[in-house]
């Protein structure tokens, strides 16, 4: 949902986020909603400025979020407060699941299909009865190797089996009721520490403010993603919103508050290992991706929007390899490198550490501060042959060889570190032109106003000139392995004497054009699978729809009396739609659910969808359209006129997810991998599929370990940004927040004899840091089973460079990952604490 749409919400739950401090400008819209009478709720381990501005604050123990959210789901189902008309038609609540399915309520924490040896699930028993459903997002099933292909074809044979009376014991509704039966308010209180009374107040506020006439929003940030169960926390929120009818409607939705300025853009056009631009999967050596035909067969879903997959894949290959891509050579598909496993950031640390990676480019990222297990990262950097750091100032990652921990503590001398290091000055926004994509998919252009100092250059300049040099170096090669580089299209014009490549040219290629005429395509619907179009990222099509029309530069907001969707302000992918799934803002017949929550509606006279936004639905598909199952419909022909979730193979929101998740079809409470207590809900302690990297450099704590008795959670500050370089280098922000600290409750401080501003040492099996104690009532201990569990909060921006310094929080953290995303678990660890300082040489 667009951030400004929060102002239209009647209830807002902020959880896994300290929005007031970390996304302050977006929080304005929460305050606007509050002024209009909305109830604002904050659930968090720390009482922050967000809590202070809310109507209800719920303290929750770090890592217990699914118990809390599962409790809300139970409340909605048991009290029968879900939005029936919406959920019955727009979600898979009535769909019948395979009879072999069993849930954690029956198997004490596991789902059916568990393979103890492989520590993974097989997914057959999670499928719809009689048919196999493919995942809707490449990102989530890259490591699953089974082919769904032949079985998924049955999706074209008829609608998924449903029982609209919800009586069938294996329909999703009944399964969910059984699954969440144990998540009672008393259990929520026991597991999360949130008083049952507060919890119930929240349930009431959420359900009271959802329905035809009212909508609610949920905002989250890395407080949810940084867990070994992070994906399932967000899933739990999605279930709540789908049950309450809060998706695709004004003031309804889930807003992911992302961190970096273009973190959304760098996910859409991924500098990520597992995806190609536009959420196409990177070919995988251990999946049936042998030939392009196999790849398409495997990845194209028979029904729903992803049936268009071949058009986007061929157009991408045409954009990359130009005329060298032909039908005969599978459009150059073989030239794409295949991945062989998890190549994400955590295993990258291990691969550096173990000498697999020999050369590394760091482009505006500072892993010595920002990556888990900083000591291991520093040892990894010291093990490289060469390192290129592109940044605007010296970073910790560029200076590990003379100021790093291992140098300071005498483990290694600079003379013995063989890494060849280049630190290259980088230009910043304002000194280069291009686009950022913000957290609600808005692609906004920024101008080049001045040049960066001295030899500062953009990353575009760097990659462009590296490409030109490499092409020259490989020009004479006739080895097949060098063909992809030689054939790579690279003809961007250069704008000035410095040879700055034209960002316009690149954005035009991303948008797509006809081949070989290079006439801009207006929209992704114009893309073809016959090689007649080239497109760098299909979902961005429309951002540069004509030669002289860069929509990301458009700056025409709505006036005060306008609809408030601001369609003239920049470009939101896809097709400038501001609210995804906005077909759901109308009832199955195409009428708005209420006048107050009107967004899109079916105009029967004209035979198309109308409204304040661009429809996220085929414009002329009537609400009463029914697939003609006798003809075995493909693609969108298999999606009915009242099925708004067009990216999902059956057009319905997946309350229950048959494919695509490695840790189960329904969110389940597991304790963090490093937890201060045993799992109160199941025999299974932690997420059984969580990723662990066994390495002597990455030891983990046993649950409930007496050596590491305290819960540790990391967080961010308003005045600093992530790895810290862009704020610790600025005098004003450094002055506002000048050094590192740890937040410690008065109760714990008294136990350990710590006074405010004392030096303290925090310890984990990965390392030790020293910092100042900040005693506070904002973090309170939890009581569990007659025990007190203390929590410690630690901001993680600090390092040894810049005007504001402090020890590196990530020295304490570990490589532990969510099974679906490989996201680390830094929001819930355990540690020890003592008063004092580290010895000299630290």
């Amino acid at each position, binding site marked *: 949902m667009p951030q400004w749409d929060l102002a239209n919400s009647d209830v807002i739950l902020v959880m896994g986020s300290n929005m007031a401090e970390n996304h*302050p*400008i*977006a929080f304005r819209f929460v305050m606007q909603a509050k002024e209009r009478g909305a109830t604002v709720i904050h659930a968090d381990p720390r009482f922050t400025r967000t809590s202070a501005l809310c109507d209800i604050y719920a303290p929750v123990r770090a890592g217990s979020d699914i118990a809390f959210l599962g409790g809300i789901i139970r409340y909605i189902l048991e009290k029968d407060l879900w939005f029936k008309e919406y959920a019955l038609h727009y979600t898979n609540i009535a769909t019948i699941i395979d009879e072999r399915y069993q849930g954690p309520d029956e198997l004490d924490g596991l789902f059916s299909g568990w393979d103890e040896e492989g520590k993974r699930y097989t997914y057959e028993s999670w499928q719809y009865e009689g048919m196999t459903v493919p995942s809707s997002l490449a990102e989530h099933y890259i490591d699953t190797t089974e082919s769904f292909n032949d079985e998924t074809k049955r999706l074209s044979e008829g609608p998924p089996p449903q029982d609209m009376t919800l009586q069938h014991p294996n329909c999703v509704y009944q399964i969910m009721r059984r699954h969440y039966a144990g998540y009672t308010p008393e259990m929520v209180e026991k597991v999360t520490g949130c008083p049952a009374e507060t919890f119930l107040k929240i349930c009431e506020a959420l359900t009271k403010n959802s329905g035809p006439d009212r909508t609610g929003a949920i905002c989250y940030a890395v407080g949810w993603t940084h867990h070994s169960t992070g994906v399932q926390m967000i899933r739990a929120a999605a279930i709540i919103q789908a049950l309450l009818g809060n998706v695709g409607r004004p003031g309804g939705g889930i807003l992911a508050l*992302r*961190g970096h*300025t*273009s*973190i*959304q*853009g760098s996910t859409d056009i*991924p500098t*990520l290992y597992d995806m*190609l631009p536009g959420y196409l999967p990177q070919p995988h050596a251990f999946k049936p991706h042998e030939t392009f035909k196999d790849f398409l067969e495997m990845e194209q879903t028979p029904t729903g929007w992803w049936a268009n997959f071949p058009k986007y894949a061929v157009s991408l290959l045409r954009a990359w390899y130009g005329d060298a891509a032909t039908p005969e050579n599978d459009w150059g598909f073989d030239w794409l*490198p*295949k991945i*062989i496993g998890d*190549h994400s*950031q955590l295993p*990258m640390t291990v691969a550096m550490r173990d000498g*697999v990676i020999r*050369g590394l480019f760091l482009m*505006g*990222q500072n*892993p010595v501060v920002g990556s888990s297990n900083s000591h291991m990262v520093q040892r990894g950097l010291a093990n490289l042959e*060469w390192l290129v750091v592109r940044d*605007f100032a010296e970073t910790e990652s560029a200076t590990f060889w003379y100021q790093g921990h291992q140098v300071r503590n005498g483990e290694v001398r600079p003379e013995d570190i*063989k890494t060849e*290091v*280049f630190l290259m*000055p980088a230009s910043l*926004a*304002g000194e280069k032109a*291009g686009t950022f994509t913000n957290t609600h998919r*808005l692609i906004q252009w*920024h*101008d*080049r*106003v001045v040049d960066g100092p*001295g*030899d500062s250059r*953009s*990353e*575009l300049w760097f990659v*462009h000139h*590296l*490409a030109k040099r*490499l092409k020259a170096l490989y020009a004479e090669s006739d080895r*097949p392995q060098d063909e*992809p580089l030689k054939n*790579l299209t690279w003809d961007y014009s250069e704008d000035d004497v410095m040879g700055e490549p034209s960002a316009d040219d*690149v954005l035009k290629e*991303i948008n797509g054009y006809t081949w070989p005429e290079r006439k801009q395509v207006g929209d992704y619907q114009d893309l073809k699978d016959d090689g007649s179009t080239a497109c*760098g990222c299909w979902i961005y099509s429309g951002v540069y729809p004509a030669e002289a029309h860069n929509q990301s530069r458009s700056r025409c907001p*709505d006036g005060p009396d306008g609809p408030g969707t601001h369609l003239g*302000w920049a470009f939101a992918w896809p097709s400038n739609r501001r609210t995804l799934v906005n077909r759901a803002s109308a009832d199955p017949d195409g009428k708005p659910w209420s006048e107050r929550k009107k967004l899109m509606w079916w105009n029967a006279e004209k035979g198309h969808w109308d409204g304040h936004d661009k429809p996220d639905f085929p414009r002329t598909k009537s609400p009463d359209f029914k697939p003609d199952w006798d003809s075995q419909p493909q693609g969108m022909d298999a999606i009915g006129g009242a099925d708004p979730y067009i990216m999902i193979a059956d057009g319905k929101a997946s309350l229950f997810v048959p494919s695509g998740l490695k840790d189960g079809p329904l969110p389940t409470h597991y304790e963090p991998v490093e937890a201060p207590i045993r799992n109160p809900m199941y025999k299974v302690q932690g997420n059984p599929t969580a990723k662990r990297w066994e390495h002597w450099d990455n030891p983990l704590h046993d649950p409930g370990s007496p050596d590491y008795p305290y819960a540790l959670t990391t967080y961010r500050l308003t*005045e600093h940004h*992530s790895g810290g370089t862009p704020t610790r*280098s600025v*005098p*004003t922000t450094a002055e506002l927040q000048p050094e590192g600290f740890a937040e410690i409750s008065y109760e714990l401080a008294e136990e350990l004899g710590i006074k405010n501003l004392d030096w303290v040492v925090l310890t984990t099996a990965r390392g030790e840091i020293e910092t100042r104690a900040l005693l506070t009532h904002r973090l309170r201990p939890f009581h569990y089973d007659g025990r007190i569990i203390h929590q410690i909060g630690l901001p993680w921006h600090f390092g040894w460079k810049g005007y504001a310094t402090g020890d590196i929080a990530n020295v304490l953290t570990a490589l532990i990952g969510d099974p679906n995303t490989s996201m680390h678990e830094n929001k819930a660890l355990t540690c020890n604490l003592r008063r004092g300082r580290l010895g000299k040489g630290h």
Partner: protein
Amino acid sequence: MRKPTRRRSLLDRIKSFGKEWSLPRQLQGQSHVDKAAESSMSRSLRPRLEEADSVGTSICPYCAVGCSQLVYAKDGKVIHVEGDPRSPINQGTLCPKGAATFGLLTSPRRIDKVLYRRPGGTEWEVKPLDWAMDRIAFLTKRTRDESFVRRLPDGTLVNHTLALASLGGATLDNEENYAIKKLFSGGLGMVWIENQARV
């Protein structure tokens, strides 16, 4: 250009204070938000922006809220950054980080030359940009050529190298991410390509 203000004697100051003290004027009904707050001193001040010879639209380089900014420059140097009042996201406002953008662009900690540390070196050396680019291209090719795998032992075609890696992208432009992915993955066959999305 800003007019130089005349140095005033103490007596002058006292006199003008008596004349210009805002309180009596407010008591007489002048608005405290504009007129009454004026003085001959404030009247002689000019906004810094008037000196700008160029202005461009920018986007805050910090978080993903995506606040719009106006960047003002004079003689090729940034002189001011402020929130763009037209933006439906920030309507002219900026948070403490966004408001620090001018300080970021003009930070004394910025480097303007390539710094190079040779293997085993104990100090940075300043190097020409061209030299560094040539050297990096050479190292990239050497590492790639020494590590490239066309087929796995079982014959599966993989066309990749595991010895080169790239980290970063979330602070960069879409065009830059596109170029990185295109060259590194589509051209060089790198698979270790990651950014802050998992941080």
